[in-house]
């Protein structure tokens, strides 16, 4: 039985600078990392592997250099990794991306029963949080977003109980397998690759599936299959705020004034 972790290689946005002239991101020289939320998705898949003996597949759609992130997944304990890479997949929005990923999950399911697909709740570059639910929709699997705890998985009755972290409260849900879940950071603490794992993963293959393997209708994927149109990217202009008190001369008074304002506007409660 297979757990599929969907991971994405993203530019390290903490390192990204914005071109002051054009207002666009300077991508040059920015290191790539595994999307931080996806590290928790992969970790949860690995924990299910440790606990229930599932196999873990990590998949990503992206340019050929995404193998770096898949190699990291192998060094952490993924059993197999698949890179979905083809020019035809490029320029995809969340709809087209979820189509390719869902098809890849189906393809993996031909060899081995898939019990769960785990995604991070969102990526730090796109921040849409749409791909996970998109995969569930394409696969016709139930979906649980924002999971912060998997309480139990029962492969006999094909049921799982998980907890979702919602605003101000939790929701505990029983769901039928197979399921797509998206996870929040609080779900776990990712492990660190051990040296023996790093060394043994060096020889493990990274499978690449292009569209010759996937046979997807090119009008449904990539740029052609993406209805989203980007009109303009811009940094929101910062509106000058109100200066309250004099923090240098009298920090206590300034802090008290600030606290009062926040209470007045119902932002904090004392």
């Amino acid at each position, binding site marked *: 039985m297979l757990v599929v972790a969907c991971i994405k290689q993203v530019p*390290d946005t*903490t*390192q990204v600078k914005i071109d002051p002239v054009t207002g666009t991101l300077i991508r040059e*020289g920015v*290191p790539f*990392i595994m999307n931080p939320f996806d590290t928790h998705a992969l970790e949860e898949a690995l924990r299910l592997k440790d606990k229930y003996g599932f196999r873990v597949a990590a998949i990503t759609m992206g340019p050929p250099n995404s193998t770096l992130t898949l190699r990291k997944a192998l060094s952490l304990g993924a059993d197999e990794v698949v890179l979905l890479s083809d020019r035809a997949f490029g320029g995809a929005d969340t709809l087209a991306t979820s189509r390719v990923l869902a098809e890849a999950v189906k393809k993996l399911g031909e060899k081995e029963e898939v019990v769960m697909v785990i995604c991070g709740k969102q990526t730090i570059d796109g921040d849409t949080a749409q791909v996970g639910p998109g995969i569930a929709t394409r696969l016709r699997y139930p979906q649980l977003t924002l999971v912060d705890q998997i309480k139990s998985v029962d492969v006999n009755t094909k049921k799982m109980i998980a907890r979702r972290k919602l605003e101000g409260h939790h929701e505990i849900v029983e769901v039928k397998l197979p399921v797509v879940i998206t996870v929040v950071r609080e779900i776990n*603490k*990712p*492990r*660190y*690759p*051990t*040296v*023996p794992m*790093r*060394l*043994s993963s060096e020889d493990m293959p990274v499978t690449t599936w292009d569209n010759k393997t996937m046979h997807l209708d090119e009008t449904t994927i990539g740029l052609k299959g993406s209805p989203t149109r980007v009109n303009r990217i811009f940094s929101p202009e910062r509106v000058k705020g109100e200066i309250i008190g004099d923090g240098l001369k009298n920090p206590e008074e300034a802090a008290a004034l600030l606290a009062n304002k926040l209470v007045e506007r119902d932002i904090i409660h004392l």
Partner: protein
Amino acid sequence: MEISNWIFLAILAVALIAFVWSCRNKFRLLALGKPEDRSGSGLKRVWNVFVYPLLQRCAVNPFYRFGINHAILFWCFLVLLLANGEFLIHGVLPGATFAAMPNGLYFTLAFAFDIVSILALLAVLLAVSRRLFFPPKYIQARSKDAFIILGMIATLMIAFFGSHSAEIALGEVTAAKYMPVSNWIANTFMGATAESTLEIVKNVFWWLHAIVLLSFLNYLPYSKHMHILTSIPNVYLRNLTGSTSPKREEFKKGNTFGVGKVNDFTWKNLLDAYSCTECGRCSDNCPATKTDKPLNPRLVIHDIKVNLLKNGPQIVDGKPVMLPLIAPHHEGSIEEDVIWDCTTCGACVAVCPVFIEQFPRIIDMRRHLVETEGKFPEELLGFFENMEQRSNPWGITPGDRAKWATGLDVKMFEAGKTEYLLYVGCFGSFDARAKHVTVAIARVLDAAGVSWGILGKDEKCCGDSLRRLGNEYIFEQMAKDNLKTFQAKGVTKIITECPHCFTALKDDYAQYGVKLEVIHHTEFINNLIKEGKLKLNPADLGKTVFHDSCYLGRYNNIYQAPRETVKAATGKAVVEMDRNLERGFCCGAGGGRMWLEESRGKRINIERTEEALKKQPRTICVSCPYCMTMFEDGLKDKNADKDVQVLDIAEVVVKALKK
């Protein structure tokens, strides 16, 4: 030979066989250790054995004055080896005795044995009273083991006097008048005793001596006094490289990484464990032990020994081991907390009388935890990821490395155009306070007309913290990356700002076959002053204490350069803290502790700051960015940061630079 000789021969044979058997059982376990080369430098090694054990340089130490008592006992022991050798042979062959030698020689020996025996008895009594009435805090002074051995030695001496004075009273000893103590006892207490009683007294004491001596021999291998057998070889085999840098690991599939079980240590590490005398000096100088943390270096070594004795025979027989090496507290196991408490300050190694290498064993076990198990305190995960991805502890953009130089005229290193590389390091590049130090160094170098440059964004972290935290795998990547950069840019002469970078570049990188000329800014600036290249006007910094950085002092023996520099720059000698030079107390940040929470015991930097404040300084002078941070935090904590400033050596010099 009479019947009693035959009986003694039988007992002696059993005792000797038992002793050899015990030794064999113990020493064969050393072969379980991994190989390690400690050959070469034979003459130097013999000299060390002469100076340390034979002249007792090991025990005698101005801070441990009682060591002189050990020296006296040791020298007595050497002389009495002769006496006891004769005693054993004489017990089997009545004719074989020193009394059969020419009178001059015999009388001299008899005199020596008599005097030495009373000295040994007094030394033992002193040792017992010390343990009973004024026990040092850093050892379990009232240990059963210690009293058993001291009791045995005292009994041996009493038996010696008992049997010899009875012999004298019987008129059997020609050397009687050369044996003042025995003779006095014979004359004072045995003058009127019947001959038959004297015979009994003589025999009782003789047999008491014989039994206790052979028991002593057989007790040794099972007690801390095993060091009598192992410490001299241990001194002979000491590390002579002058570097305590961890060894490289070979990253090949199938290898083990670090030490997770006792037979992953090398045979020399295991011999170390057998050599511990339980003197407690390492504990007394360990910053973790002194601030009530679980780590006690003596107990680490003790636990390794207990683990070996317990598991060794199982391993020899190919059976599974009984006792895990790293596990929650149990004698023979070492707790993870203990392993993470170490600052690798090196005080334990520096102070050990028998050259045991305590803290490197902790790094061995950290390697196992990090590399094989992926287990370490939570806060290190971010640190490791930052290091791996961005080559600095905080995960700051590598491109910002040269930001400190904004607005300054700093050149990029270019072979042929610049002579020295200033290797700034992560603190000097990114830390707000340390950046001032970097600027100060730049000003001093420029004032002296030194030709220098930096690598800017091409500089990577040296990897010191990673290595000392046991993450050798990533350290190696960094070392190789840096060396590649040095090679590509033609860097051969390097000035470092941080003593940790200094040690890493100089000693750790040398393990990769690259010899770099590395100098720490403290020494470099001191040389500039000596060569007259810096014109200084003594600056008034008030009372200035100097804190020895472990990685400059103990690691690299640089003690005088910073002191001379402060003197040149302020016109006054530094005020010394109570613990200084080789005994300097760590700031608490080394060994990767900078990146770990310090939740157990008192904070080390508070302890050290309090020690500095005792001298009522206006300035605390440091030579390391870690120490700088720890003192500044300590001063804030003690509410003393308004009255006391922390300055790096370079900043002290800048204040004295003639405008």
